[in-house]
């Protein structure tokens, strides 16, 4: 058996093992294994199955397409969705191996080790086997990358990216990177309009609008509100990793706000400016997938809400980023800081959530600030790493520094 097949086989076995343990935990243990969101999808698909709107389930904030995909939960097995998510999770791993093969300088062993960051990652396995849908979304994005870089079918690539944006708005940040990447030659940003980019963007836009129109036709404003608008107007008062969290909690309780206190309404400016414009502009031609990695990292770091499942959004690009990474103390220290600050935040959050102690300030606040800074340091490090690969830029800047 080929080594990649072996890896996938082991990965599948691991997922089944986690899944089976989940069945046991759900039945006999106090805390359930199955993700609360899985119950939400299941309920929503049950409504759909009985001919009603999936939005009858409170907190269902996804496209109706997700409940369509989960319809077999109602007649085949209530675990169908978990198998679907575990399967898409394996597809992501398979695509990672396939896309890595594009880089000729990597040995099969190295490719497998890199793919293991995803395939054998207990966090990833847990998330999909608990019934979280993130892996489905990641698979769509990976398909877009696979068709873009390996197959070079720009229609299909655009189709998958459009589909992923329909699923969860944020993948639109990859649009700019791909368009810059498709300009081909360096320093020709005016060359944004070309055959490849037209194929890609038309396909992407048509897919997104067709799907969204179909869903709007069948499910109306409720679909638009719950899937998209809600995310723009939501009150994120509950504690989470985001640096904005405490500000948002304060602001949500105040009726008359002056401009200074409207953090939530300007938070998207640095977030989008950096992740949607500047990073694609500066990095996408050097290393497209590593650019995705940094973009997503920035997007999540500067977001108004951060929960640990968002980390999967950039974790899937990590194998590509690390393929030519040289071990160094600085990166290691930043990573250690990232883990440490997260740990500190979690300990304050535990005290708040389970012991009822008010740790909002200074505990939670400063630990989310520290976590934010750790993220930013890592982002800086990643930018350095990607830029160091650009032979044309590095000598220039070295000259300047001299």
């Amino acid at each position, binding site marked *: 058996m080929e080594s990649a097949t072996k890896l996938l086989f082991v990965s599948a076995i691991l997922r089944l093992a986690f899944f089976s343990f989940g069945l046991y935990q759900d039945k006999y243990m106090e805390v359930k294994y199955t993700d609360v969101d899985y119950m939400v999808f299941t309920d929503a698909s049950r409504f759909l199955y009985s001919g009603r709107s999936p939005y009858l389930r*409170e907190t269902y904030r996804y496209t109706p397409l997700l409940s369509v995909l989960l319809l077999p939960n109602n007649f085949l097995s209530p675990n169908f969705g978990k198998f679907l998510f575990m399967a898409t999770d394996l597809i992501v791993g398979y695509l990672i191996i396939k896309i890595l093969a594009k880089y000729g300088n990597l040995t099969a062993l190295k490719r497998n080790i890199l793919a293991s960051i995803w395939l054998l990652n207990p966090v990833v396995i847990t998330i999909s086997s608990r019934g979280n849908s993130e892996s489905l979304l990641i698979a769509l994005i990976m398909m877009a990358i696979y068709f873009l870089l390996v197959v070079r079918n720009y229609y299909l690539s655009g189709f998958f990216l459009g589909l992923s944006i329909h699923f969860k708005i944020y993948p639109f940040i990859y649009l700019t990177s791909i368009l810059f990447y498709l300009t081909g030659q360096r320093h020709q940003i005016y060359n944004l309009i070309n055959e490849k980019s037209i194929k890609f963007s038309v396909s992407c836009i048509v897919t997104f609008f067709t799907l969204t129109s179909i869903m709007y036709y069948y499910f109306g404003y409720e679909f638009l509100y719950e899937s998209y608008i809600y995310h723009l107007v939501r009150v994120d008062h509950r504690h989470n990793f985001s640096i904005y969290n405490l500000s948002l909690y*304060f602001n949500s309780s105040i009726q008359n706000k002056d401009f200074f206190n409207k953090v939530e309404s300007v938070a998207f400016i640095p977030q989008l400016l*950096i992740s949607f414009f500047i990073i694609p502009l500066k990095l996408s031609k050097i290393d497209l997938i590593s650019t995705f990695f940094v973009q997503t990292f*920035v997007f999540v770091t500067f977001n108004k809400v951060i929960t640990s499942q968002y980390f999967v959004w950039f974790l899937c690009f990590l194998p590509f980023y690390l393929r030519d990474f040289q071990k160094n103390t600085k990166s290691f220290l930043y990573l250690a800081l990232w883990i440490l600050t997260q740990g500190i935040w979690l300990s304050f959050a535990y005290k708040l*959530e*389970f012991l009822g102690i008010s740790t909002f300030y200074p505990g939670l606040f400063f630990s989310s600030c520290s976590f934010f800074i750790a993220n930013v340091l890592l982002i800086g490090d990643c930018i350095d790493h990607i830029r160091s690969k650009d032979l044309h830029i590095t000598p220039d800047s070295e000259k300047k520094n001299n």
Partner: protein
Amino acid sequence: MSTNIVQRTTIIIPKSSELQFHEKVKIDKAYSITLPSTIVPFKRQDRFTIPIARILKDVSYESHLLKILKDCYSFRLQFSKLEDYDSSIFGDVASPGLSVNFIPQIADDSAGVYETNFNKTITAINQELKKLLYADINDESVLFNEFIVTPTALKYFEPTNEISYSLKKSIEDILEKSISTDFQYLEISYDSINNSDKFMVQFYWADVMASEDLIFTKKQDYKTEVGIFTIEEKLTNVDNTGLAGVRFVLDNSDDIVPMKTSFQFTPRHRTLLDISYKNEFIKPIGLHPKYKLSLHNEKSETPLQPPLLIQPANLIPEQADSTEYCDLVNNLDVCKLYLSWNLPKDFFMDKYQLKDDRMKETGLNLIGLYGETNLELPNYLIKKWGSEALFELNISQAHLPSSSSSSVPTFEIPLHSRYSKPMQNITSFETKIPYPNLFWACDLTIPIETFTSLGAAFIKEHGDETSIILSKNPYSRIISNFEQELQVLQKSPFHHKFLGFESYFDDNTVFYHIQPQLDINSDTNNQKLTFDLTIPVADLNDFNNVHIITLLVVMFSGFYILKKLFH
């Protein structure tokens, strides 16, 4: 038709002090009776029945209560102290706190304006309710929680231990006399559907220590009945209360004479004295408080069920084997255990979590959850007072803690707290949750129907046998017993189709309430019927620091990243 207000005062004194008490009653035949001040505590219930025409005739009343009544088909306000008291005799049982249930009367004159009228009426009632319950505060900033919609009425609730001055004043205007507010229970009800012309106000004192003489005098347009009773043990059991003593009638026509009286009455709401429940929140209490309730019997042989079907031996048909009969009776699903709970908006229940199969496996079956059930919003974005939950508890499925030797059915209900408004210098927001009501609801038609069909089957089977002469159903005595009880309940002058949790059950239902177990460690005499919980909040003093630091960190980080990209 008489426009008199009828006042019926029932005083229940302990048997031991009966003679002593009666000796001291002073009667002025033409004018009044005086009850002695006493060191013996007694129970007292006052029930006023007022013809509705009498109170609604005078429109110039600035009474918020009357303004609400005019807009309602049915109205029921119940106030029950947040402290434990003995409510077993009269069956005046309500959730601890102040509950108002009402059905608005919507003018529906012309087509198309129903919705407008509805909104107008609802807004008006809400305004008046606010003024009634919050002592005429016109200040708009006073936060008033709006009512919720339940399947049978609109409902307002507040876990308060006092009534407002405005409410007291409204009652005094209606009764045309002053009242003291040291009662444990107050009920105001009006039902234009079933009891159209009567308006009722009722007070109950569980433990009166009269330090002064109690004087009842004749009054214009008033008919007052005063009864002084002791409990007649022979006529009293869990289902019935027997009273014996003297009664006085004070009206303008006759002299006041003592009348010996004894009677038995069957309340719809009964109290089980041999069973109690213990409840608590499992510590530590975080943002997801877990409520734990366990049922206890005083003696291990006492069944946890109401003794509804434990019939006197002479009712068991001679043809039936007595053990067979007992088995049969035990398997009849006549009574079900319910928990009804008013949950202030600082907390919520997750109906999806509660409807999960695993919850049902622990004996917890959510029947209804009404009101504010949003799973995400903070309490300051919630407009209504909270939510009402009704659970059916299944004892046979309940969790039995292995640690205790006896079987103590235990139930756990997960709650969630909402985020609360940040406040100056405060990091925890103090709030209250009232105790729930725990009761058995028994459907009397079930034994009637079961025994009727059993009897029919018996006749069919044994009808040919000459040895048994069957003229009628062998269970007829049991059946007629239950039928009689139903009749008594339906004819009872106190009965009308009430609002509140009773309204979720039909007229054939009797309730057996279970009381909370007293906390022996409690310092005060009165056991509180509320849980004091705190919700962690942010201190508003940190507001500026948080904003400035957030802004600075984000700005510098942004520049750092830009520098990395452009240097």
